[in-house]
């Protein structure tokens, strides 16, 4: 049991952290592992074990957000404004800006960016975790990146 925990702890905690935020990540990760260990005996292998665990993680994170009420699923039209181009002297670096811009994203967009881009899972695995079609996943990823780009402002090298 402990071996399984250590095997998955980084990914579960990382996913939870980037979807629900630092404050509640440990609580959500704990909830996920408790569900994993309680449900393990009944796991029938309908998916890879990792897929099942990540699915639990995403669902627990999204449920937590919904319960917390701090962030509801919002449509593109009413995402709060975030300055597109921070002043250079206050720009803490791209990584930190990306972390900051994850938070205002709708939870669903956050989830697909974390699964595909941060954790490096394939479209097929993302689709299995999010229980949607691969095409839907790809489309969500495109929209999520688009929304994140708008929040971040120009980030690429303009001279390329």
């Amino acid at each position, binding site marked *: 049991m402990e071996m399984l925990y250590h095997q998955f702890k980084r990914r579960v905690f990382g996913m939870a952290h980037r979807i629900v935020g630092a404050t509640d*990540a440990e609580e959500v990760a704990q909830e996920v592992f408790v569900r994993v260990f309680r449900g393990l005996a009944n796991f029938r292998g309908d998916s890879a074990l990792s897929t099942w665990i990540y699915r639990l993680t995403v669902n627990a994170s999204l449920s937590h957000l919904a319960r917390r009420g701090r962030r509801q699923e919002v449509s593109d039209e009413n995402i709060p404004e975030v300055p597109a181009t921070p002043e250079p002297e206050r720009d803490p670096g791209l990584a930190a800006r990306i972390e900051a811009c994850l938070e205002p994203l709708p939870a669903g967009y956050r989830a697909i960016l974390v699964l595909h881009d941060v954790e490096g899972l394939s479209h097929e695995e993302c689709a299995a975790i999010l229980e949607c079609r691969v095409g839907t996943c790809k489309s969500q990823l495109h929209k999520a990146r688009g929304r994140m780009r708008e929040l971040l402002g120009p980030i690429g090298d303009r001279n390329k």
Partner: protein
Amino acid sequence: MSCDKVRPQLTAYLDGELEGDRGTAVRGHLRTCEGCRQMATDEAALRDGLRAMPPLDPPASLWAGVQAQLAAEEVAESKRPSWRRAFSRWAPFAPRVGMVMGALAAATILLVWRSHRHQDVASAPETVTHEGAHEAVTPAPAPAPTAEAADVSAELAAAPARVSGDYAQAINDMLAAAKAESAQWSDDQKKAFDLQVAELQASVDTAAEGRPRQKAQRALIRYLQGAAIRDEVALR
């Protein structure tokens, strides 16, 4: 290709998922369109920034919290009457079991199944199995052929040739099967088959003993199976 056709494909293009003409078309548009090119540059930088985000280590208190919560739930569970425990375990799985029958009958079946599963899990504490049966139950490996004077180092040296011999036997079997099926082939098919077999056999003969030869032998076996079973004789 216009911008409003290119932009929806940018994510797939940047992730290398656009093949052939579509990728070429997007690439061609990006060369000439500053706006789309900036968008692609930004998205690539974003994607790389996301990929570079470091893994996060949970605090040490997480594992302690998990154990504490599991322990607390076990204590609470043990205080409930046994019939209520069985019922609550059955209820979420009723649709999966797919039976519409008495709650007690289903609970009995499920209790028996779960106790079997717990034994399987308990017997393999360090591995996660499902269904239990996948711990391979295999016959003991065949003992290596022994000769009074054979030493382990000599046996190891001779092993690759022995394996190649096994593969060679399979090739002979498949050749015979393919020949039997070839009665229905046209002359062209027979000729193509002979040529292909000769080529693959040459690869076997020239390959170094050991894994390279075995790989060539497996390729020949696959070809022979395709030919004998699916009439796939075309030259590759």
